[in-house]
């Protein structure tokens, strides 16, 4: 239950942000659902282009509107945005209209020539996705050859003199142990490391159970971020970890619909990049009067900007730190939005996951219908024997005491 209330005249920045802003601070724009890769955990279930994707002219009109709204920069992603034939044109168009661009890519089109072009621009940031510090760990989720592709792109950027590229890592059970190696890799390319949270969104819903960091790894991650926080970007991804104690650098706030939103390739506007689902669809910028109209007046966003109740979390002494965690992580694991985050570091998430819940059906899927050679084969990486090193007994792991209690 939420009520619309008057914005307080004073108060902390976080309190002000909860009431929303006239324009987003952090806007993600996915240009296409087409992708050369088929990452197992793709947030947007990308693969195939949608025939309704915005045309070049429509994209230019979006940029014009962002300029008018003074959205100073946009995070462009996909799918793989660089495989849109007009990608480089739109990049230039945005920069020429005072909309800086940070784009995420798997590196497929970052040739030496493109790297030189990028090095010559201002206001462009490049973020290369890499989900393992080794080919084995990366290719397990991103598909064969994707590690080499990313490293070639980073090398091309470094050779061209492009400064401070970002290496963007989704933290999983398999790569939490590689944080130092990622940092070394970033240092090697003169790049900055960016760590983000694995969300159970899109195809991520299917692999979240086996990929999301284990409870003790959450602690390792928190400790590592506390030690390296100044040099590493997180996109405020890990505010659920604030319940370990000290807050991590950043806003520690769910910005969905308040300071953050997503424009998808067909112009649908969602509350956040991790919430591509009808329940978080605020409107469409082609049919609902443009982006400003959707951002400022959609019912969904009005509701998200009203004070939220803590629900089951309200009595937890850490609620003020984590604010109940990530809305998308709860939604896509079938947990109530006013309860604990599935990865609640105080342990309430595990209890909630063990209870009755229904994982919502996806409302869109642009995955390729048939696997290609780029599809990751996740069966390969079984680092531990199923039960124990020498469990040959047919009753291994069977505990007659435990099973009926």
């Amino acid at each position, binding site marked *: 239950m939420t009520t619309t209330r008057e*914005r307080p005249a004073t108060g902390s*920045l976080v309190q002000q942000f909860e009431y929303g*802003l006239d324009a987003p*601070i952090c806007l993600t724009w996915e240009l296409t659902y087409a992708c050369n890769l088929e990452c197992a955990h793709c947030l947007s279930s990308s693969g195939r282009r949608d025939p309704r994707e915005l045309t070049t002219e429509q994209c230019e009109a979006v940029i014009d509107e962002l300029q008018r709204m003074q959205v100073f920069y946009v995070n462009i992603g996909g799918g793989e945005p660089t495989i849109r034939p007009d990608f480089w044109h739109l990049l230039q168009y945005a920069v020429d209209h005072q909309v800086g661009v940070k784009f995420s890519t798997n590196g497929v089109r970052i040739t030496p020539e493109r790297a030189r072009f990028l090095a010559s621009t201002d206001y462009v940031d490049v973020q290369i996705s890499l989900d393992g510090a080794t080919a084995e760990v990366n290719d397990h989720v991103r598909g064969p050859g994707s590690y080499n592709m990313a490293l070639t792109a980073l090398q091309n950027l470094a050779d061209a003199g492009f400064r401070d590229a970002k290496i963007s890592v989704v933290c999983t059970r398999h790569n939490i142990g590689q944080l130092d190696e990622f940092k070394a890799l970033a240092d090697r390319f003169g790049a900055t490391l960016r760590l983000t949270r694995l969300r159970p969104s899109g195809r991520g819903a299917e692999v979240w159970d086996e990929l999301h960091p284990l409870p003790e790894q959450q602690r390792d991650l928190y400790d590592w971020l506390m030690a390296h926080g100044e040099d590493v970007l997180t996109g405020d991804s890990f505010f659920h970890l604030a319940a370990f104690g000290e807050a991590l650098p950043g806003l520690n706030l769910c910005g969905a619909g308040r300071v953050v939103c997503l424009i998808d390739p067909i112009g649908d506007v969602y509350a956040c990049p991790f919430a591509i689902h009808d329940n978080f669809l605020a409107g469409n910028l082609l049919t609902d009067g443009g982006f400003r109209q959707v951002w400022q007046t959609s019912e969904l966003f009005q509701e998200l900007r009203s004070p939220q109740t803590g629900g089951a979390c309200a009595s937890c002494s850490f609620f003020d730190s984590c604010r109940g965690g990530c809305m998308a992580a709860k939604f896509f694991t079938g947990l109530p939005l006013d309860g604990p985050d599935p990865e609640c570091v105080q342990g309430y998430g595990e209890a909630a996951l063990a209870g009755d819940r229904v994982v919502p059906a996806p409302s869109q899927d642009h995955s390729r219908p048939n696997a290609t050679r780029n599809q990751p084969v996740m069966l390969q990486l079984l680092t531990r024997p199923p039960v124990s090193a020498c469990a040959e007994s047919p009753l291994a792991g069977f505990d007659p005491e435990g099973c009926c209690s």
Partner: protein
Amino acid sequence: MMLDEPWALSPSVALRPEPFGALAYHFGNRRLTFLKRPELVAVVRALAKQPDVRSALANAGIPTSQHPAYVEALRGLAAADMIRPRVEEPR
């Protein structure tokens, strides 16, 4: 003494009005800063048009007793290159 100096918004900074004040974005170093009071926004906007910071504060209606606090805030903005000392044309 900052109060007696001419200052202005940096040329690569844009201000975006918001209900609580404004966002200041620096296109050069890509830093985003929040001006948390409408009064501070008025002061920053007045800087370039006034001979010195003191006049900008007066122009925005800031009482003298609050000048030190505003100078502190302006110093913070200067540290992020959001505002710069204005170099006067020699007469």
